[in-house]
């Protein structure tokens, strides 16, 4: 089995009244696509933010690429990346300018070729000189994904990346991510509320509820365990407390 690139031990986050994440432990293996599933408020975003070092855990341990996140922040962050539907990009800059800024931030070599390639992969090459403000949500999502791949990350954290994509583009995006994974051994941690997408994308799923991992396994295993026809049914059972 491939080695773990993310190791989480008893990770906990308490905000004033809420325990958003409660002593969860899990690993992500190199080259794996791990789906994180759970109802609103389950703690998915909080977990991802802690893995990126932008939210400080109340307790527990995070090791990424074999290093402790607290002590090796810079080294780790230069090798991972993130995209989500809740971040945006500077509105007055063009697509190309934005990517150029992030390329510089991540110290990407041959950034022109790199940007051009990503633009064509995501089919947004015609938009390269368009001001970001004028992009549709789906177009912006793709630029944001291109940004997330600029530094050839070893691990990609995607928090609801396809939330605003039309089915066609969402499908293309998924196969694109899978292709990149096949080519480069990219590891992906993924959240989505689209159950079909989770089934299709994930090698393995972590099911979070109220800050705790209630189940983990391949989509098939989870469906069997909860006796559901598909993930959607499982999700509804769990969310409505019928298990």
């Amino acid at each position, binding site marked *: 089995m491939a080695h773990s690139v993310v190791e989480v031990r008893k990770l906990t986050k308490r905000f004033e009244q809420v325990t958003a994440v409660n002593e969860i432990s899990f690993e992500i293996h190199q080259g794996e696509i791990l789906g994180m599933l759970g109802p609103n408020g389950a703690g998915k975003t909080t977990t991802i933010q802690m893995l990126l070092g932008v939210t400080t855990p109340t307790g527990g341990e995070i090791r990424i690429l074999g290093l402790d996140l607290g002590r090796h922040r810079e080294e780790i962050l230069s090798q991972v990346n993130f995209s989500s539907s809740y971040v*945006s990009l*500077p509105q007055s*800059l063009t697509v190309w300018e934005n990517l150029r800024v*992030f390329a*510089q931030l991540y110290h990407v070599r041959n950034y022109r070729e790199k940007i051009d390639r990503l633009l064509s992969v995501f089919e947004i090459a015609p938009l390269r000189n368009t001001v970001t403000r004028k992009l549709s949500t789906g177009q912006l999502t793709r630029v944001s994904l291109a940004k997330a791949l600029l530094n050839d990350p070893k691990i990609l954290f995607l928090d609801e990346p396809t939330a605003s994509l039309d089915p066609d583009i969402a499908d293309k995006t998924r196969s694109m991510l899978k292709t990149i994974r096949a080519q480069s051994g990219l590891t992906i941690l993924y959240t989505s509320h689209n159950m079909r997408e989770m089934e299709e994308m994930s090698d393995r799923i972590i099911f979070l509820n109220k800050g705790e991992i209630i189940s983990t396994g391949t989509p098939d295993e989870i469906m069997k365990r909860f006796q559901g026809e598909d993930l959607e049914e499982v999700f509804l059972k769990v969310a409505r407390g019928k298990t």
Partner: protein
Amino acid sequence: MKLHRILALVNRHLMLYKRSPQRMMEIVYWPLLDLLVWGFITMYLARYKEGLPAFVTFFLGALILWDILFRAQQGICISFLEEIWSRNLLNLFVSPLRTGEFLASTMLVSIIKVIGAAIMTIGLAYLLYSFNLFMIGLSLVPFVINLIVTGWAIGIFTTAIILRYGQEAEVMAWGLAFLFQPVSAVFYPVSVLPPFMQVIANGIPAAHVFEGMRAVIETKGFPLNELIWAAGLNVIYLACAILFFNGMFRIVKVKGLLVRVGE
């Protein structure tokens, strides 16, 4: 500190200005209006009171210099607010970027803006009123540098507050510098202040700068004393502001607010 990261952010802000005429107004419009109003006031005073002391012309100089402080402060705050407005803060801090590099980039951006606005203002003051700021001499340079650093310290402090308390605190970005104006002895000497305010003024670097500038105009001697006070206080204030920012950043990460700044 990695230079490429600092330059990436400086670049981002310069490109913004290239594309946005509204933002250029910040550099051109306000200094121009200030200059017109104060320039005419100075001319008016000079006409009605023959033999007015030389420092009255310094009103204009004082105005230009105060504007430098204000711009330096704004430069910091606006660079930060731009990231909030465009929901880009998280993109930056999931990269290896450090807070120190972020602040350094905002300081560089502010210097560039200050230079832009200063060239504009000094040039116009000369054209419109034949007021030559450089007649005060090269002794101006170290004082101006101190004003910029004071502006940075206030700017970083303000930014930290906005980071922690969100956009409701944005008004501070526009107002805080002016809180210091009465005790900064911009247009009048410290000695006109009531005693307790004089005590406060002595702790304000900008007050020492403006006292120094007046000394330059009146006696032509170089007020090294004031300069040392200004520089010393500035080092302390800037260091405190940076520590304060880092402290607030830490709190924001504990409270999980970085994701939410600007909401």
